[in-house]
């Protein structure tokens, strides 16, 4: 296997993801409905309930929908990451994961390729969301649309990495509902996606620490700052670190030597 084989393999995996995406445009749009409901309805209703003071990276008072836009982008990335993990579980059940794992390139490479392909789709969704949000008063600086791209990619990879890891642990599709309840919702609500953390800090210090320990908070902050042409080092460090941890766990989970696959197989 030479480098050109690796390139062809990555291209093939991305190409497949793109085809699936084109064949399931309905799903792509449906995935946008969720954050748009939050933006168009929830944010409007809460507009005057939550007072948002001036906090970085913003330089003026901002309407609530502007505040939650980065959080909703985070939501898109998280759902997409989980969805791709759902498709991995599904793949494993239908056996197409087997065809991937029996191909000759190293397993870490196959999984990383799969992750990259999933992130490309979710970044596209994030941009479609930003486009629609523009008409609802979310006007980041023009350059922000460009500076947010690396943040979207990194945050997307981290959240998909989490999904990939979960897919190596979850045995069956039915357990995925559990992931929704025990992973997605707690991560989303215990974060800075819907409210600035200083409000949480005033209300409950323990919850505040929990929010600060939540990698999703940092994914949202990374996106929020990047969208306003600013770089948040702390958020970057946490997101990058979490990516490494989740990816390592995922690769271990799928490792043929010590993997959970091997231990689990006996019960099948």
């Amino acid at each position: 296997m030479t480098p050109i084989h690796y390139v062809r393999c990555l291209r093939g995996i991305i190409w497949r993801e793109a085809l699936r995406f084109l064949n399931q445009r309905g799903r792509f749009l449906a995935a946008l409905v969720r954050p748009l409901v939050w933006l168009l309805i929830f944010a409007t209703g809460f507009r005057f309930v939550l007072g948002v003071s001036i906090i970085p990276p913003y330089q003026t008072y901002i309407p609530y929908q502007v505040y939650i836009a980065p959080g909703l982008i985070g939501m898109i990335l998280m759902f997409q990451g989980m969805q791709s993990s759902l498709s991995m579980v599904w793949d494993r059940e239908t056996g197409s994961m087997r065809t991937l794992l029996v191909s000759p390139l190293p397993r870490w490479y196959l999984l990383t390729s799969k992750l990259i392909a999933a992130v490309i789709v979710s970044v596209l969704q994030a941009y479609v969301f930003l486009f629609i949000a523009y008409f609802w008063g979310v006007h980041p600086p023009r350059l922000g649309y460009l500076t947010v791209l690396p943040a979207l990619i990194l945050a997307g990879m981290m959240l998909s990495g989490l999904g990939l890891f979960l897919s190596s642990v979850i045995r069956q599709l039915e357990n995925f509902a559990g992931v929704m309840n025990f992973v997605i919702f707690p991560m989303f609500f215990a974060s800075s996606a819907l409210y600035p953390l200083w409000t949480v800090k005033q209300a409950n210090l323990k919850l505040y620490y929990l929010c600060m320990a939540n990698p999703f908070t940092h994914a949202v902050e990374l996106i929020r700052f990047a969208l306003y042409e600013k770089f948040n080092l702390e958020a970057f460090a946490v997101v990058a670190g979490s990516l490494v941890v989740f990816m390592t766990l995922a690769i271990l989970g799928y490792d043929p030597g010590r993997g959970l696959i091997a231990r689990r197989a006996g019960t099948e």
Partner: protein
Amino acid sequence: MLAVKAEAAEQGGAGAPAEEAPPLVVEGLSHSFGERQALRNVSFRLNRGDRTMLLGLNGAGKTTLFSLITRLYNHRSGSIRIFGWEIKDKPSEALARLGVVFQLATLDLELSVAQNLFYHAALHGLPRREAAVRLKREIERVGLTDRLREHARTLSGGQRRRVEIARALVHQPKLLLLDEPTVGLDVASRQFLLDHVRRLCDERGIAALWATHLIDEVDPGARVIVLHQGRILAEGPVPEVIRRANASSMREAFDKLTGERGE
């Protein structure tokens, strides 16, 4: 790399490169899940062009054996060598020479037949133009050329299997594993697969290992491995296995060997 080749050559015959080593050599393979021992000291070999039926009841250890040969997980004792490459040490080299048809349906139903095959070719690092030539050839051999552009979802169960065999051969492996490929198929589709694999072995020198629990599928022209409770009870050409068991048919031989009634 060279050292491995030399070692492979030793096992394959004097001075032969890896490609001339036997397609599959399994030696002293044992595997257990916790307390339960799924395979006990399993050894066998497939030579070029061998068509070997791996016959065993459900739970005999066939799936475990296939999982180990396809490296879903690693074996801890014994060895598995594909054309001389030990799968645990050189997985890429070994897997590149192996074609697999899984028991589960593994086509992506959202994609067309051609797209499924292109995806597989890409996983094996084949350039697109070469893949196009090869997949046309393979799909023609299973008689589905006119379905190439159609969604896999529109194919019948038997046709999907045929596509899966074509797919398993796109990267031109000389060793083909089939894990109960006829499950759920009608009689005609089943016969097509049996005939097709026989032709692959006779005409192209492919070695095939076909796992089944159906004694009917074991014909006198094949070799057979009888696997029972993780152990190999008999191995060899079908007529020889029948004779050694003092039986008149494969069915009788199987019953005598295992002390249980097969299907």
